[in-house]
C-alpha cells in the first residue's frame, strides 16, 4: 500500500493534496503510520514496531490500521493504481 507521491506531509501531522487542494490533519499515531507507508513498509513490518513502542496488542493494532487505511482510501490519498 503506497501513499500518492505528490502528497505533502508536515511534521505536525498536516497533510496537503496538491491535486485536489484538500488539507487534512492527523494525530501522532496516524502520522507515524503514514511515514512508514511512505517508506514502503508493509503491515507486517509496521505492526511489530508499533506494538513494541505503544501499549497495544497486535490484533487491536491491525483493526485500527485497516480502519485508518480505509479513511486514506476514502480521501483518495492512496496510490492504488501503482500497487506492487
Amino acid at each position, binding site marked *: 500500500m503506497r501513499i500518492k507521491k505528490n502528497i505533502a506531509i508536515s511534521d505536525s501531522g498536516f497533510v496537503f493534496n496538491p491535486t485536489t487542494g484538500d488539507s487534512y490533519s492527523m494525530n501522532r499515531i496516524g502520522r507515524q503510520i503514514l511515514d512508514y507507508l511512505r517508506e514502503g513498509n508493509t503491515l507486517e513490518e509496521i505492526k511489530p514496531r508499533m506494538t513494541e513502542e505503544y*501499549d497495544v496488542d497486535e490484533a487491536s493494532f491491525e483493526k485500527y490500521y485497516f*480502519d485508518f487505511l480505509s*479513511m486514506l482510501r476514502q480521501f483518495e490519498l492512496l496510490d492504488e493504481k501503482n500497487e506492487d
Partner: protein
Amino acid sequence: MEKKPFERPFIKKLQAGMPSKFGMKSMTEPITHIDDIPVSEIIADYGSPVYVLSEKTIRDQFKKAKHAFTTRYPKVQFAWSYKTNYLDAVCRIFHQEGSWAEVVSGFEYDKALQNGVKGSQIIFNGPAKTDEELKKAIDNDSLIHIDHFDEMYAIIAISENSEKRPKVAIRVNMDTGIYPMWDRFGFNYESGDAWDAINRIMVNEKLDLVGLHAHIGTYMFSAGSYKIAAGKLADLAYGIERKYGVNIKYIDVGGGFASQNTLKGAYYPGSDTTPSFDEYAEAISSALLNSQINPRNLPTLILETGRALIDDAGYLLGTVIANKRLSSGNRATIVDVGVNLLFTSFWYEHEVYPAAPVSEHMEETTIFGPLCMNIDVIRDAIAFPLLKKGDHFVIKRIGAYNMTQWMQFITLRPNVVLTGTDGKVHLIRKQEHMDLIRQQEVIPGHLK
C-alpha cells in the same frame, strides 16, 4: 521500558469556513470523577452501564431554587414531582429538604406515603384517578387537583358517604403565549370553564376549594409565560375572594422549568438559553405580588419543579463496545448505553464526555446503543474523542425522567448508585436479573 499510550490513528479533512464568533470550545475535558469519586472505581464496583446520582448536587440545586423564590415571595412550598425520578432515596433527599410530594397516580401516591410524607402534604394530580384512590386521598386530607368534571362529581359522590371534607384545587389551562398550548389537562381559563368549575365547587357544601393550579407545559424557555400564568391564577383567586369571600390558600404554578440540556434542533446550547431560577422566580413572584390579591392574604406559592432540580445530579456511565465505519466513511461508535436507558436522548443532544484524559483530536461520530434496533442512537454526528473498545465515558445531565421512563427492553436495567454527602457510594437500586423478570410471567400448562 514502559510503552506509550496508544490512540487509534486518525485523519480528518479540514473544512474551510467562515470564522464564527459563536465558536464553541471543543469538548475534550474528561469527567474523571463524580463528587471526588473516580468514575473508573464506580464502574469497577457497580458494572457498566451504571447510573450515578449526586446527593450534593441535588441538595445544592434545591437550595439554589428555594433561595431564588423565598427571597422574592413570603410563602413558598416545593413539592417533589415523583414522575421525574421516584427512586425512594431521591424522594427522601427532597423530603428532607422540605419538599412535599406531587404525584400523578395511585402507585406514586402510595410511594409517597411509604416515604413518610404526610397525607396532607401530598398533591394528587393527574387525569386518571380511580374512585378508590380518590377515597384514600380524601381520608388522608391530601390536596386533590381536579382535572375534569367527571372527577369533580366522583369526589362529590364519595364525600357524601365520608366524614371528611375533600380539599380540592382545580387545574386550569390557559393561553400563556406559548405554542402548542397545553389544553388537555384541567379547565380552560379563556373559555370560562375554569369559572364554571369554581362556581360548582363553591356552591357545593361538601368540598373545600383550597388552591388553583396550572401546569403550562414542559421545558419552558420563557419565564414570561409563567408570569402570564401566575397573573391569570391570581385573577381567579381575587375573583373568588370578591364573589365568595373565600381566600384561596395556595397557587400552584406546576413545573416545567428547563434544565441546561440542549434540545435537538436548537441553535444555541441549553446552557446559554435556559432561564435561571432567579428569572423564573422574578416572573412568578412579581405577577402574584402585583395582582389584586389582598397582601394580607397572599396564597402560598407551590412549585412542582422536577427536571430543573434533578437533571444536573444524574450521570450515566458506560463503556465503548466497538468502533466501525459507516458506508459514508463516518465513524460509528457502539456503546453499552441504549435508548432504553436514556429515553431523553430522543429529544436532547446529550453531552458525552470521555472518562479519562484524551488527546485534542476529535472525530465526527455517531454514537449507537447496543440494541438491535435502528432507532438506538444516543448522539448523531457529535465531535467525539478517539475512544477505543473498553474505554469509559460519562453522559451528563440525565437525572430527570430516565429512571422512570426507562424500559426493560432487550437488556436489563443496571445498578443505580448515589454518591452521598458522606463521601461514600451507595447502591440505591439493584440491577435487574433474569429471575425478577421471569417471576412475573406465567406459562400455561400446555406449554410447560
